């Protein structure tokens, strides 16, 4: 397929020749870059494919197609066509921008070009064109994946003309997105080091996965709400300033609406990409390339001027509070600092943390509770009456499963030789530091927030519930660590979690069982207090024995 794409690109060879592009070099550059794209690990939804594959970009396209199906909510669930296409293209552009930012970073920040291509006799025009065409092809695959479901829907439901207009709309939306992403890059590269920029991209990837997750659960409910269904496009002026509404106006014009509003918005949608194109050509080829060329060196220099990372002082403080022995302290600080500074860990674990509030919000407020349509106030009362907030306390424990699944893995796993040349006589103590750091950093913040919110909205009586669920959390953390962790932190290559399905399932079942027990006892305050004290004691005893664990399953992986 890539060969076909390259042949298609080379059809314009008379133009390339006139521009002094070496077409043979262009072809081989594109071939190699597309080959590398297809072998790149997938990072959609914050998860990387663990095994080698040769079709990454196509799989990525397929995944974007699934996201495109999610976008169909806007077209299907909103009755008003103008509004539905405005919402659709708004979401389409948001998704495309986030995808492009994440994906461009891999393509544009690939320093290998500096070492592999630039020292060779490849002229600037060929190099720049190869880069731009490569970006175009990568982007094309993504856009086609994301837009295909909407295109098919428009074709089947709205007809041929609407289908052709849809293609035009997608083109406009894509060019606007490219402009926005370029602006983002130009601004960020001016102010941030490569390191910080890559961190920012990682956070955007996380935001992207959360957005998808949140959309999946909340959008159908929101779209069917009276707020959205009663929204009238023509009288809601703030919608007119959104480029998505300008793009949507083309469908109205296609249907024969030649009102001043529809025509003005349609022309705006046409003008914006033209202006964008001029801006891209001027800025993209100059400022961008120059900034990129100096990135590998400049980035280091900027970063080297930085101060002590802020996570360090927090790590020291918390390690002093929660650990006693030096080796436990070392494990605690190590995990605290590395988890806060490693991109691959953050992109895998942070989304799962963000899913907790999203999913809890959905269950508490957006879930369809039956035939009666309750408003938010009535739903909140229902949460209090039925004590469904307890679910939130236990649901956040799932984050720990994700943390322990990835805590042993690292791209820098070869640095783990230090564990095996040092005299670690009590590995249980080191792992206890690891356990405590994971618990304090990734679970206690939820409990803190729940405590504050619980006391504010429910009252002091919620404290025993929180204490009990925290104690259960401590026990669960110990069990998860014992059953699923089979290496020192960040000591193993990134790989597929194998053989953990059953243990994870059993642990979730156990947590669920205790949660249900809690639910049935919640009316009896003293019983809950008693259970809280009991489980706190069990947790302390388990931790005592955990520290003595030999961890013989940990071996040095050459």
């Amino acid at each position, binding site marked *: 397929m890539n060969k076909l794409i390259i042949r298609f690109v080379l059809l314009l060879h008379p133009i390339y020749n006139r521009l002094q592009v070496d077409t043979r070099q262009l072809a081989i550059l594109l071939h190699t870059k597309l080959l590398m794209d297809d072998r790149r690990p997938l990072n959609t939804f914050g998860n990387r494919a663990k095994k080698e594959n040769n079709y990454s970009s196509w799989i990525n396209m397929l995944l974007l197609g699934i996201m495109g199906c999610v976008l169909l909510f806007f077209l299907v669930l909103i009755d008003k066509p103008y509004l539905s296409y405005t919402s659709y293209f708004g979401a389409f552009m948001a998704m495309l921008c986030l995808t492009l930012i994440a994906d461009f970073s891999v393509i544009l920040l690939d320093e290998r070009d500096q070492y592999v291509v630039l020292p060779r006799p490849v002229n600037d025009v060929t190099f720049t064109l190869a880069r731009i065409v490569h970006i175009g092809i990568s982007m094309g695959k993504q856009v086609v994946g994301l837009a295909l479901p909407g295109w098919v829907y428009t074709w089947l439901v709205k007809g041929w003309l609407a289908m052709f207009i849809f293609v035009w709309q997608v083109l406009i939306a894509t060019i606007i997105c490219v402009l926005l992403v370029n602006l983002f890059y130009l601004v960020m590269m001016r102010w941030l080091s490569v390191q910080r920029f890559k961190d920012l991209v990682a956070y955007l990837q996380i935001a992207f996965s959360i957005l998808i997750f949140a959309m999946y659960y909340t959008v159908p409910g929101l779209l069917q709400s009276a707020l959205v269904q009663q929204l009238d496009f023509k009288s809601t002026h703030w919608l007119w300033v959104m480029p998505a509404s300008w793009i949507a106006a083309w469908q109205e014009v296609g249907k024969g609406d030649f009102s001043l509003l529809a025509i003005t918005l349609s022309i705006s949608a046409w003008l914006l990409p033209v202006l964008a194109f001029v801006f891209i050509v001027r800025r993209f080829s100059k400022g961008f390339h120059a900034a990129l060329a100096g990135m590998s060196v400049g980035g280091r220099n900027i970063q080297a001027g930085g101060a002590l990372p802020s996570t360090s002082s927090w790590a020291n403080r918390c390690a002093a509070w929660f650990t006693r022995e030096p080796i436990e302290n070392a494990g605690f600080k190590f995990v605290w600092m590395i988890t806060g500074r490693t991109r691959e860990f953050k992109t895998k674990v942070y989304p799962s943390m963000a899913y907790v509030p999203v999913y809890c919000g959905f269950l508490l407020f957006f879930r369809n509770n039956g035939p009666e349509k309750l408003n938010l106030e009535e739903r909140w009362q229902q949460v209090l009456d039925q004590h469904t907030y307890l679910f939130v306390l236990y649901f956040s424990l799932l984050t720990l499963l994700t943390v322990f699944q990835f805590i042993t893995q690292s791209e820098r796993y*070869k*640095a783990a030789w230090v564990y095996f040349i040092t005299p*670690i006589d009590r590995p249980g103590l080191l792992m206890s530091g690891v356990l405590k750091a994971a618990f304090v950093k990734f679970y206690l913040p939820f409990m803190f927030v729940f405590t504050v919110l619980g006391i504010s909205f429910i009252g002091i009586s919620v404290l025993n519930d929180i204490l009990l669920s925290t104690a259960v959390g401590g026990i669960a953390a110990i069990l998860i660590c014992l059953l699923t962790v089979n290496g020192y932190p960040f000591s193993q290559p990134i790989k597929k979690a194998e053989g953990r399905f059953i243990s994870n399932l059993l642990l979730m079942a156990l947590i669920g069982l205790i949660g249900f027990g809690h639910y049935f006892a919640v009316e009896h305050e003293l019983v809950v207090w008693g259970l809280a004290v009991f489980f706190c004691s069990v947790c302390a005893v388990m931790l005592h024995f955990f520290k003595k664990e030999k961890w013989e399953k940990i071996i040095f992986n050459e």
Partner: protein
Amino acid sequence: MNQQEPIICIRDLRKNYGSKAVLKGIDLEILPGEVIGYIGPNGAGKSTTVKILTGLISDFAGTITIDGKDLRTDILAIKAMIGYVPENAELYEVLTPLEYLDFIGKLYGMEEAVIAARATKLLTALGLAEQLYKRMDTFSKGMRQKVLLVAGMIHNPKILILDEPLSGLDANAVITVKELIARLAQEGKTIFYCSHMMDVVEKVSDRILLINEGTIVANGSFEQLKQEHGATLEHVFAKLTGRNDMTDGAAAIIAAFK
């Protein structure tokens, strides 16, 4: 013959990877305060020997005693007296040097204050005073190598195993490390120095061990080896590892362009 007890004693050390024998019965005694230059071609068994001595590989045949302790039964005590500087600068580079050394030091059971004071002095001595609080992902290879050197010495070990310690270091740092090796030996530390840099091995080693295809093929001071086999260590190396045809190889490369 020196009357001292050997600090490292290796008897009939063998190691196979599958059906391939990598070490074929090594016998060796190293005295306290000796600087041993351990050289050999790629794949000769140098790294495997080092990994066994540092406890990274535990399934081997033969016996090794270090300071009178058996490597199989007293591995923790032995690890505590060895400092190791690996060939590849693999470290957790999102940490700062001080954070990394704090972690390493604590794995050796050291107190935080002692680690901080010693790490600061050692890093400063190696020219990293300005980088104490900066993340190592911004460091050059030489700077990372310096951090690894400090990590190998932070607990003041009796034995120092250095695997290509000069890799990536600038000329000033090379001079410092060479001088350091000599001083450490004077202090009674035993140094096991693996390298491909023959000129350095020649200068820093009291005794040179040449390993080829899993066996020690030469064992003696540079002067002894020179008398027996050739004028420079490179000649000794080429002669004993059967690679006298290196000049022919260069000629073949030139011929390929014609």
